């Protein structure tokens, strides 16, 4: 082997390793901890393993009871399907209107002071931490069963979702554009309206359409708690063991979910 004219460079070690010994040990300890957590969860849940033995037979049996779908049920569920979409749409629209002031309240750069910011954040968390179906239970108790409770439930859950993302967009808005409007002597409300709102418009439209798409899916089970829509028919069919009807309802829900997802994707792709 030819030696190169310089002396061997001893500034660097001969072997290079990506991780130090300490990092390797830490990595293994984390892996062991996660495995332990999984094992603990399984043992704590008291899972009846016997049910797994014939699970495939049960699944096949259910599929056979569902087939063929009872298409004669379809005309019955057309109206509740449309009602489901109306619940999602109206709920999203109400949430959109409410989310704009809430977003300005919950964004650090537009809220009046620390107290108003805390109120804004608390409203966001309250709206977001309760599932739509739980909101449904609450509003059925208030408005009674029906679509109104469903609309209120969708709006209550969505307003926090929309306001959180819009508030983040407000915090990231370009300072220069805001300054330029401030420098004209515009009022604070006008600065928000002309300097900030156009900047967050793509986020506002994009998240609203995306939330509408989610709401179509969530509205399909709101009927389980009596809050209107197709869910009531799905729930009733399951309780009657009318599996051939259940398949028709599931297929119908699949179709409207696919359509809403396509509409949502198309609109979001066109925002600029």
């Amino acid at each position, binding site marked *: 082997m030819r030696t190169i004219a310089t002396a061997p460079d001893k500034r660097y070690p001969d072997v290079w390793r990506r991780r130090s010994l300490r990092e390797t040990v830490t990595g293994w300890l984390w892996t062991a901890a996660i495995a332990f957590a999984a094992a603990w969860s399984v043992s704590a849940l008291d899972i009846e393993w016997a049910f797994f033995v014939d699970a495939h037979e049960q699944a096949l049996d259910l599929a056979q009871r569902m087939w063929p779908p009872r298409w004669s049920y379809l005309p019955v569920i057309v109206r509740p399907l449309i009602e489901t979409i109306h619940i999602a749409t109206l709920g999203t629209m109400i949430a959109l209107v409410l989310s704009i002031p809430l977003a300005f309240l919950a964004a650090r750069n537009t809220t009046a002071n620390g107290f108003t910011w805390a109120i804004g954040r608390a409203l966001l968390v309250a709206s977001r931490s309760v599932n739509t179906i739980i909101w449904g239970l609450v509003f059925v108790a208030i408005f009674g069963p029906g679509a109104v409770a469903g609309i209120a439930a969708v709006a209550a859950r969505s307003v926090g979702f929309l306001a959180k993302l819009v508030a983040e967009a407000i915090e990231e808005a370009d300072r*220069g554009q805001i300054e330029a409007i401030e*420098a004209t*002597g*515009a*009022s604070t409300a006008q600065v928000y309206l*002309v*300097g900030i709102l*156009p*900047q967050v418009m*793509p986020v506002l439209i994009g998240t609203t359409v995306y939330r509408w798409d989610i709401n179509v899916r969530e509205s399909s089970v709101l009927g389980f708690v009596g809050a209107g829509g197709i869910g009531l028919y799905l729930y009733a069919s399951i309780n009657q063991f009318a599996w051939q009807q259940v398949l028709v309802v599931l297929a119908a829900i699949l179709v409207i979910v696919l359509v809403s997802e396509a509409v949502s994707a198309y609109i979001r792709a066109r925002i600029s």
Partner: protein
Amino acid sequence: MAGVLPADAARENSRGALLAVEALTKVYPGGQRALDGVSLVVERPEIVAIIGSSGAGKSTLIRCINRLVEPTSGQIWLGAAEIVGVSRRELRRLRRRIAMIFQEFNLVERLTVMENVLSGRLGSVGFFASAFRRFPPQDIAGAYAVLDRVGLGGYHDTRADALSGGQRQRVGIARALMQNPDLLLVDEPTASLDPKTARQIMRLIRELATERRRPALVNIHDVALAQSFADRVVGLKSGRVAFDGPPSALSAETLTEIYGAEDWSQTIRRADDETEGRQ
């Protein structure tokens, strides 16, 4: 230089100045003393170029005048009105008389040219009028006229983010003119533009300030451009006024005083050759 018109006389303060900055000091929260007792009196509608190296306080000075940056101490008089001590409400009224043109143009990118130009009138319309873009007919007519004047006739419905840098700065100038301001603050108007566009924009700012007989304070780091287009040059160094005089008085020595040692012969000769726009 054109004399002061009677209309301007009413706006002068007791000492006859259109703008008077007195012992203005700005210390940033970090302790950095950006302005250290700057005094500056503008008595005529003239173009005042403010030069100085980065960090000398040029931007801070301009931004203190409309209080986008809050001064630490000192006074600023716009005619008879003092700016530093007033409430936010009164400040908004004073800001309507002071228009600003920015280095990064700061147009609201997703709005059209017309909406951006009309935003110069926000101070004179209410919230719902601005929400539904219902501006008075004279504002609309004024906006079309100003767009023609800055060479953007026909662009009113184009969105700001579809324009080139030079076009955007013209919209920025149009927005400033819509305020019908008593004072123009111009913060590095050409730093984001190519050399040719930079000269066109400086020429436009000069022409418009002259036409309307309004003073303009222009931050500019290009000494040659400052000499070509300004009536007066103020040099800032470490937050203090290091030079205040006509462009012709700028020498290699004064530039060294402002910026530090450098070979200034090219800079000064080029400026002399290309002086323009001054009567």
